[in-house]
């Protein structure tokens, strides 16, 4: 009789251990679930910010060996190259017959017989920009460079 009672007591204690362990694991997984759910919601909110945006890689080559890469630069859809350059650097320009002509980027420029010219990467090499930078509408993933060229 006493042995029976003792056996049941130990069985109950064992089940209590299993209950504690299962509750702990359930609580742990619930906490993890809540954390990841919050992260997911935060990511969705963050992504919404970029819903109407594109990413480009922009190189500024000052022509003296200094080159600045601005990778994954985020700009709104429909931005021109001028808008993107203004977003990452201080730009001075004049407006001519064919559009905007950049004279200085980050204070570099303005010398006689030296110009800021822009190029785009066509997959194999750099190609000259076909239009003025304010007339060129950027596309997602494009690679663009500004090169300070002395003639």
């Amino acid at each position: 009789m006493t042995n029976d009672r003792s056996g049941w007591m130990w069985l109950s204690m064992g089940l209590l251990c299993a209950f504690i362990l299962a509750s702990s694991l359930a609580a742990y997984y619930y906490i993890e679930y809540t954390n990841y759910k919050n992260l997911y919601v935060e990511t969705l909110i963050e992504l919404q910010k970029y819903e109407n945006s594109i990413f480009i890689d922009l190189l500024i080559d000052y022509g003296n060996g200094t080159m600045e890469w601005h990778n994954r630069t985020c700009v709104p859809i429909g931005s021109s190259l001028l808008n993107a350059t203004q977003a990452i650097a201080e730009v001075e320009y004049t407006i001519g017959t064919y559009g905007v002509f950049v004279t200085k980027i980050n204070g570099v420029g303005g010398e006689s017989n030296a110009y800021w010219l822009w190029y785009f990467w066509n997959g194999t090499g750099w190609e000259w920009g076909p239009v003025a930078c304010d007339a060129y509408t950027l596309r997602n993933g494009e690679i663009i460079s500004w090169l300070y060229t002395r003639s």
Partner: protein
Amino acid sequence: MIIGDNIGDKNISFLPTRTVSFIGVMTALCISTNYLMIGLVNVKLMDLLVFVSGYIMGASVGASVGVLTWLVYGTLNPFGFNIPTLIATCVGESFYGIIGGLLGKSQRKKSSFPPSMSLTEKSFWKTNIKFGIAGFISTFTYDMFTNLITSLVFDIPLILYIAMGIVFTTIHEISNFLFFFFGCNILVNAIMKIMLREVKD
């Protein structure tokens, strides 16, 4: 009940030398293994050693080992020192000794003491499971008690505090279940063998 020597007419009793040395050795063992396993958070042999002390020598001895261990380890601790936490851990650790003492007492009444060590006997595994369960429940009690005190001291909601430390408490409970399951019976038998031999000598 531990009865020591009486000095003269005065009824002053001292703990027997055997008991004092047992407490000293077990406390030293607890402290040294604690520092040895300091990198393993919440995985310690101390709880098993305190429980075994209580199981063999009684609840008061087990509780003493637990309290003394924490008085040293809690004071010279690389993770910091805090009086309320130290008191909580001292009291909490004594639970292991008390539970060990109570189980040892009931084991002495019921069946053979120390428990069987034969791997082929069913009773060996049964006893091991009982030790594992006792270790798990004691650890759960210890964790809940220390969490309660620490949350009160640092004014953190208890549920939040438990949730924050759930991984560590689970590791503590599982590791102690395994330590008690595999180590308790063997340790009790080993210590009893040494002590009985000493008596014979």
